[in-house]
C-alpha cells in the first residue's frame, strides 16, 4: 500500500495542481481579452479556488465512474473494502457504502467542530479581560468569522453523518438511492473546507453574515469564504436530494409514512429546507464574489444597488438553516427518549408533523433578523407574528418529550443524559427566542451578546447535545463495543453546567450592553466578570469534548463487546449484528407494527424476514 | 403500424412547438400594447406549463408502469 492509493492524498495533490492551473487559466484569459494589468491577485485566486476544487474531485476519484459512463462503460457497484489494501483505507477515499460515508461525514464534522471551537477559545480568551492582550482587532475579527463558518460547516457535516448512517439503516434500505452522488456530496465538502481554511492566510472580518458593503471592501479572504460556502452548500443540496428520494422510494413493505422512525421524519423535513433554501445563500455569495470581481453593483447604492437585498437573500437561507441545524437533533431526542423511558413516544403523529410545520413556517420568518436594517416598517409586525408562530410546533415537541417521560421507567446512561441536557439547553434557547422575535425588545438587543447567547443555546440544545447523544447511543452499533460509561458521565457533568453558565453569562453581558463581534469593551460596563465566567465555561466545554474523543478512540479497542441490542431498542438497525455488516440486512425486512410501542406486550415493529420466530 | 404511431408523435411535437411560438408572438404584442407585467408573467406561466407537461412529461413521475 502506498500513500498514493489513498484518495484523500490524490485529492489534495489534485487541488494543488488545479489551483495552479486555475490561476494560469485566469492569467491566460486576461491576456487574451486584453485586460490590464494581466496579473490581478483576486481573479487569479478565484480561478484557482474553482479549478482547484474540481482538481480535488478528480484526484480523489469522485468523478471516475461518471467519466466512464460518458464513454459508455458500465460500472458495477463495488462492495466491501478495497482489494489488496487494509480495510481502514476505505475511509480515506471514495467509497459508496452509506455507512462508510456516514462515518466520513461524522468524523470530518467532529474535526471541523474542533477547529471551529479552537477559534472560539482563542478569541474568547482575549475577551476575558478588557484591553488588548494577544490579538489585534483584525486577527480577532478573522478568528471570530472563521469560528462562525467552520462551526456551521461542521454542523452540516454532523447532520450529514447522522442522516447518511442512520436513514438507510432505519428504513431497512440496502443503501441510499444514489450511492455515487452520495460519495460526491461528501467529498465536495473537503475542498470546501480546505478553501475555507486557506482564507486564514488573507483574513476576513465580516462575521458569518458577511454583509456588504464591508464584505465587498474587505480583504481577499472573503473570496475563499464565499466559494467554500458555495461548495459546502452544493453538498447540502445534493445530499438532501438523495435523502428525499431514499426516504420516499426505498422504504420496506409496511412502513407507511406514519410508521417511519421519527428521526427519518426530521431528516425529511430538514432535507426539504436544504434542497431549496440553500440555493439562496449560494446565489447571494456568488453575487458578492462577482461584485468584487467585476464591479457588478447588486449591493452598491452608487450603482443603483441595495445592500438590504443581500440581507433578504442571506436570511431567506440562513433562518431556515437554523432549522436545518436543529431539526435532526430534535429528531434524535424524540428517537432516544422512548428507548430509555420504556414507553411509547407521546403524540408520534404530532411530532412528525411538527417537524414539517417548523420547516414550512421557517420560510416565512427571515425578516426578524432585519428589524433594525431600515427595511419597510410595515414588515416588522408580520415577521414578528410569523416568528412567534414557530413557538407552537416547537412547543408541541417539548410537550411530547415530557409526555413520553411521564410515568416511564427511566434509566440514565450517557446518551439519555445528553438527551436531557439537550432539552434543558434547548429550553434556554427557546425561551430567549420570543424576546428577540418581538420587535420592541429586539431593537435594544439586536447585535448584542444576548443574541450570541440565544443562538448558542439553540444550536447546542438542537444540535451539539443531541449529536453527542447520538454518538454515544449508536457507538456500539458502529464499533461493536461499548464506550466507557464513567468517562461519558464525566463528559456530561462537565459540559452541561459549563454550557448553562456560558449561555446565561453571554445573555447577561449582552443585556448589560456588550456588543457582539467587538474585540474590546469598556470595563465600566461591568461585564468583565461575566466574560471571565464565559471564558472558563468555554474551556471546560472544550476539555470535556476532548475527553469524549479520547473515550471514543480508546473504547474502540478496549471497550466491552456490546452485542446486537444493548439498549433493547425496537428499531431495525438494532436487530442486526454489531458492528453493522457490509450488507446491513441479510434479507428484506417487513414492518408489522408501530415504531415506539415500548412496554406494550406482544407488539412488534419489524419482522426480520427469516429470523422472525427467534426475534419475537 | 409502428411507423404511423411515430409520425403521429412527431406531429404532436410540432403542434406543441407551434403553440409555443404563437404564444411567444402574442407575448411580444402584449408587451408593446398592454405593458402589463402580470399578464406577461401569466403567459410565461402558461408556456412553462405546456413545456413541463408536453415536453418534460412530468406525469411519468407518478405513472405506475414506470416506463413511458
Amino acid at each position, binding site marked *: 500500500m502506498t500513500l498514493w492509493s489513498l484518495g484523500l492524498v490524490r485529492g489534495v495533490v489534485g487541488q494543488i495542481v488545479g489551483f495552479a492551473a486555475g490561476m494560469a487559466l485566469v492569467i491566460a484569459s486576461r491576456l487574451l481579452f486584453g485586460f490590464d494589468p494581466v496579473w490581478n491577485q483576486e481573479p487569479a485566486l478565484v480561478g484557482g479556488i474553482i479549478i482547484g476544487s474540481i482538481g480535488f474531485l478528480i484526484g480523489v476519484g469522485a468523478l471516475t465512474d461518471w467519466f466512464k459512463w460518458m464513454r459508455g462503460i458500465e460500472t458495477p457497484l463495488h462492495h466491501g473494502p478495497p482489494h489488496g489494501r487494509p480495510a481502514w483505507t476505505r475511509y480515506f477515499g471514495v467509497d459508496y457504502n452509506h455507512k462508510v460515508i456516514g462515518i466520513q461525514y461524522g468524523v470530518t464534522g467532529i474535526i471541523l467542530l474542533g477547529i471551529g471551537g479552537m477559534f472560539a477559545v482563542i478569541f474568547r480568551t482575549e475577551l476575558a479581560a478588557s484591553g488588548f492582550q494577544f490579538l489585534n482587532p483584525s486577527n480577532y475579527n478573522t478568528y471570530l468569522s472563521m469560528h462562525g463558518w467552520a462551526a456551521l460547516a461542521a454542523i452540516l457535516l454532523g447532520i450529514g453523518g447522522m442522516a447518511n448512517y442512520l436513514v438507510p439503516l432505519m428504513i431497512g434500505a440496502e443503501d441510499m438511492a444514489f450511492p455515487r452522488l452520495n460519495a460526491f456530496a461528501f467529498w465536495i465538502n473537503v475542498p470546501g473546507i480546505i478553501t475555507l481554511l486557506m482564507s486564514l492566510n488573507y483574513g476576513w472580518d465580516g462575521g458569518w453574515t458577511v454583509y456588504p458593503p464591508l464584505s465587498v471592501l474587505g480583504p481577499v479572504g472573503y473570496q475563499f469564504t464565499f466559494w467554500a460556502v458555495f461548495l459546502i452548500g452544493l453538498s447540502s443540496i445534493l445530499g438532501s436530494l438523495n435523502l428525499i428520494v431514499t426516504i420516499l422510494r426505498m422504504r420496506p413493505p409496511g412502513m407507511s409514512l406514519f410508521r417511519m422512525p421519527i428521526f427519518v421524519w426530521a431528516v425529511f423535513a430538514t432535507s426539504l429546507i436544504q434542497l431549496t433554501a440553500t440555493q439562496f445563500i449560494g446565489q447571494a455569495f456568488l453575487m458578492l464574489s462577482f461584485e468584487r470581481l467585476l464591479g457588478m*453593483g447588486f449591493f452598491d447604492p452608487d450603482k443603483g444597488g*441595495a445592500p438590504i437585498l443581500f440581507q433578504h437573500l442571506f436570511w431567506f437561507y440562513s433562518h431556515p438553516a437554523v432549522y436545518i441545524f436543529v431539526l435532526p437533533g430534535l429528531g434524535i431526542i424524540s428517537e432516544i427518549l422512548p428507548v430509555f423511558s420504556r414507553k411509547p413516544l407521546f403524540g408520534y403523529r404530532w411530532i412528525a408533523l411538527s417537524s414539517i410545520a417548523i420547516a414550512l413556517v421557517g420560510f416565512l420568518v427571515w425578516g426578524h433578523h432585519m428589524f433594525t436594517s431600515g427595511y419597510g416598517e410595515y414588515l416588522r409586525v408580520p415577521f414578528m407574528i410569523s416568528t412567534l408562530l414557530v413557538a407552537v410546533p416547537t412547543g408541541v415537541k417539548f410537550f411530547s418529550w415530557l409526555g413520553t417521560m411521564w410515568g416511564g421507567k427511566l434509566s440514565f446512561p450517557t446518551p439519555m443524559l445528553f438527551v436531557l441536557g439537550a432539552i434543558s439547553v434547548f429550553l434556554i434557547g427557546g425561551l430567549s427566542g420570543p424576546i428577540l422575535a418581538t420587535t420592541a425588545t429586539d431593537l435594544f438587543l439586536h447585535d448584542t451578546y444576548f443574541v450570541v447567547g440565544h443562538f448558542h443555546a439553540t444550536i447546542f440544545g438542537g444540535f451539539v447535545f443531541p449529536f453527542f447523544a447520538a454518538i454515544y447511543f449508536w457507538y456500539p452499533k458502529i464499533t461493536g463495543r461499548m464506550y466507557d460509561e464513567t468517562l461519558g458521565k464525566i463528559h456530561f457533568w462537565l459540559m452541561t453546567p459549563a454550557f448553562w453558565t456560558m449561555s446565561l453569562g453571554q445573555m447577561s453581558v449582552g443585556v448589560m450592553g456588550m456588543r457582539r463581534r467587538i474585540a474590546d469593551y469598556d470595563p465600566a460596563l461591568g461585564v468583565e466578570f461575566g466574560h471571565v465566567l464565559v471564558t472558563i465555561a468555554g474551556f471546560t466545554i472544550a476539555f470535556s469534548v476532548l475527553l469524549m474523543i479520547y473515550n471514543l478512540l480508546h473504547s474502540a479497542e478496549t471497550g466491552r463487546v456490546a452485542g446486537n441490542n444493548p439498549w433493547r431498542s425496537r428499531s431495525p438497525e438494532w436487530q442486526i449484528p454489531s458492528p453493522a455488516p457490509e450488507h446491513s440486512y441479510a434479507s428484506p425486512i417487513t414492518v408489522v407494527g408501530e415504531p415506539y410501542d415500548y412496554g406494550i406486550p406482544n407488539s412488534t415493529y419489524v419482522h426480520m424476514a427469516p429470523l422472525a420466530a427467534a426475534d419475537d | 403500424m409502428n411507423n404511423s404511431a411515430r409520425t403521429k408523435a412527431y406531429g404532436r411535437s410540432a403542434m*406543441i412547438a407551434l403553440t409555443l411560438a404563437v404564444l411567444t408572438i402574442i407575448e411580444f404584442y402584449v408587451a408593446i400594447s398592454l405593458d402589463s407585467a402580470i399578464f406577461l408573467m401569466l403567459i410565461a406561466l402558461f408556456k412553462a406549463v405546456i413545456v413541463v407537461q408536453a415536453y418534460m412529461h412530468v406525469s411519468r413521475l407518478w405513472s405506475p408502469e*414506470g416506463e413511458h
Partner: protein
Amino acid sequence: MTTVTAALEGYTQQLRNNRMGLWLFFISEAFLFGGLLVTRFYLWGNTRPELDQTIGLIVTGVLLLSSFSMNMAETAIEHGDRRTFLGGLAVTAVLGLVFLIGVMVFEWGLFPAIYEGHLKPGDNVYGAVVFAMTGMHALHVISGIIFIAIVWNLGRKGGFSPERHWGVESCAIYWHYVDVVWIFFYPALYLIGTVAH
C-alpha cells in the same frame, strides 16, 4: 446506473428513482432562478434596460426551436428511429450554440471587434442583473450542450434503445428545463417595465 445483468424490475425501480432525483434537482434550481428573478424585481422594479429587441426575439425563437428538435430526438429513440434521434440531437446542440452566440457575442458584446455591446456588468445595476441572469442561464445552456454531445456520441456508437434510454430522457428534460427558465427570463429582461435611461 445499470449493470448488464440487472433485472428489468431493478432497472424500472432505478429509473423511477432517477426521475424523482432529477425533478428534485429542478425544484432546487427553481429557487436559484427564482432568486435571480426576485433580484431583478427588487432592483429594477417596473423599469428595464434598453436591450436589443431583435436579438431577444431571435434567441427566444432559437431556444424554442431547439426544444422542438430535442423532443423530436427523444420521440425518435422511443420509436427506435436512430437517424432522426441523432439528427435531432445534433440540431439541438447547434441551435443551443446559436443561442449562446446570440447572448454572448451580441447581447454581451464579448468580442467588441465583432459587435459592440451596450451594457457592461460593472456599469450599474442594470448591467449587473442582465449579466447575472443571462450568465447563470448561459452556464446551464453550456452544460446542456456538453450533455447533448455526450449522449449523441453514445447514441452514435449504438447506445440506448426504445426500452432503455434514461440518458436521453434526462438530457432532454434538462434541456427543456433550461428552456422553461428562459420562458420566464425573456419577459423579465426584455418586456416587463418601461425603459430606463
